[in-house]
């Protein structure tokens, strides 16, 4: 009988090592990776020109290839909204619901396991490592609330935990598992060297935009100004791009910072009011909100002109377009730097 394990693969070092430890015991492993919409992986380096020069590699795919396993990438954007909006265990330092997130993902892996006749789940969790979901008292909470219970094995710290079903059944030799704990990365780095892994991604903590303070502030601003805690995928993508400036509660400007962002935002011309400088090189901006009044449009243009090459000119011409339905040109004097009120800038 072939024993099969499904591994949660984030693309970081820990899940790579956990999967390899289990593979070494002759168990068939396949990987599962969840796309929440908040994943740092991939997005920003597809948008910004400066990031386009970096190596483009999805680390979860890279890990799967190193391990020689299949990887199933699962879109959980819709279901994940409830985790972000109503986290039972609350948020971390920002809008990161790390404990609820881990419970949800292990629960989804457990569903997948049942559908595909796999035998147990492995994660790269290590007791006492960040984030909060890996604190010792929370590891049993993840196992219990996900429904996985003792089918959840954490190979990197298993010796510090009660034996799981795969161990008591003899599928996995407990003595070959590890007893890592705490925030030190030295044991993982040593094990990576032992396995011959050199080019792995920087581990832990940086895989989700919700752990980022600036991103969380923008998401909270979006909820506050809509009067309800909800979002669509485009909303959370746009929070990753551009300067976000809210001169009033009625509208927000998303102003591109460079050519790559201009190109990305131009894909939204049919969904938003847009403003683009024409007399001088400058950014494209999306206007989020109801149709602008003439006064609001003039203010928006003056702000956007401030971020163009014409910032010191007496007059800058801009093109306003309403979802590509109608457009008109507007002349404004750019705001001076000190006229951009700090409380308008959402960071």
């Amino acid at each position, binding site marked *: 009988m072939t024993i099969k394990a499904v591994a949660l693969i984030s693309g970081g070092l820990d899940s790579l090592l956990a999967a390899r430890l289990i593979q070494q015991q002759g168990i068939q492993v396949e990987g599962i*990776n969840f*796309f929440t919409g908040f*994943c740092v*992986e*991939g*997005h920003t*380096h*597809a*948008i910004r020109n400066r990031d*386009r020069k970096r190596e*483009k*590699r*999805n680390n*979860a*795919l*890279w890990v*799967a*290839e190193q391990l*020689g*396993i*299949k*990887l*199933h*990438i*699962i*879109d959980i954007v819709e279901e994940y909204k409830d985790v972000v909006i109503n986290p039972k265990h609350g948020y971390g330092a920002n809008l990161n619901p790390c404990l609820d997130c881990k419970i949800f993902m292990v629960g989804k892996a457990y569903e997948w396991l049942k559908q595909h006749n796999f035998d147990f789940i492995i994660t790269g969790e290590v007791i006492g490592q960040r984030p909060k979901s890996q604190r010792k008292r929370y590891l049993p909470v993840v196992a219990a609330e996900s429904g996985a219970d003792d089918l959840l094995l954490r190979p990197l710290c298993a010796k510090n935990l009660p034996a799981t079903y795969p161990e008591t059944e003899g599928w996995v030799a407990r003595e070959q598992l590890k007893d890592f704990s705490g925030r030190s990365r030295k044991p993982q780095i040593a094990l990576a060297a032992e396995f011959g892994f050199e080019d792995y991604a920087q581990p832990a903590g940086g895989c989700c935009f919700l752990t980022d303070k600036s991103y969380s502030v923008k998401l909270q601003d979006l909820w506050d100004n809509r009067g309800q805690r909800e979002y669509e995928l485009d909303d959370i*993508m746009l929070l990753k791009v551009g300067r976000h400036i809210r001169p009033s509660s009625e509208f927000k400007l998303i102003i591109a910072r460079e050519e790559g962002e201009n190109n990305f935002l131009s*894909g939204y011309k049919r969904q938003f009011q847009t403003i683009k400088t024409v007399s001088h090189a400058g950014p494209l901006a999306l206007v989020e909100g109801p149709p602008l009044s003439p006064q609001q449009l003039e203010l928006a243009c003056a702000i956007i002109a401030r971020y163009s090459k014409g910032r010191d000119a007496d007059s800058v011409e801009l093109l306003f377009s309403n979802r590509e339905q109608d457009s008109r040109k507007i002349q404004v004097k750019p705001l001076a730097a000190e006229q951009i009120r700090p409380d308008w800038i959402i960071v």
Partner: protein
Amino acid sequence: MSDIVELDARRLLCPMPVIRLQDCLAKQPAGARVRITCTDPGTMSDIPTWCRINDHRVLANEQQEQEYIFLVQKASDGD
């Protein structure tokens, strides 16, 4: 030879093009061919990697201005 299934993944950022391809191939019989058109340059790495680890074949790939086009054939035993 069977028809080619066309898949439009333009404007989608990785890993969404990979997910679209994965979900499309899951509905196709073994040996089926899918042509996916993307705009995220990350797909130049991600789609061939995903195909390699899942035993699917990239029969052709080309870049036309800002678009990246892949012709993929589903593995004989793939899912």
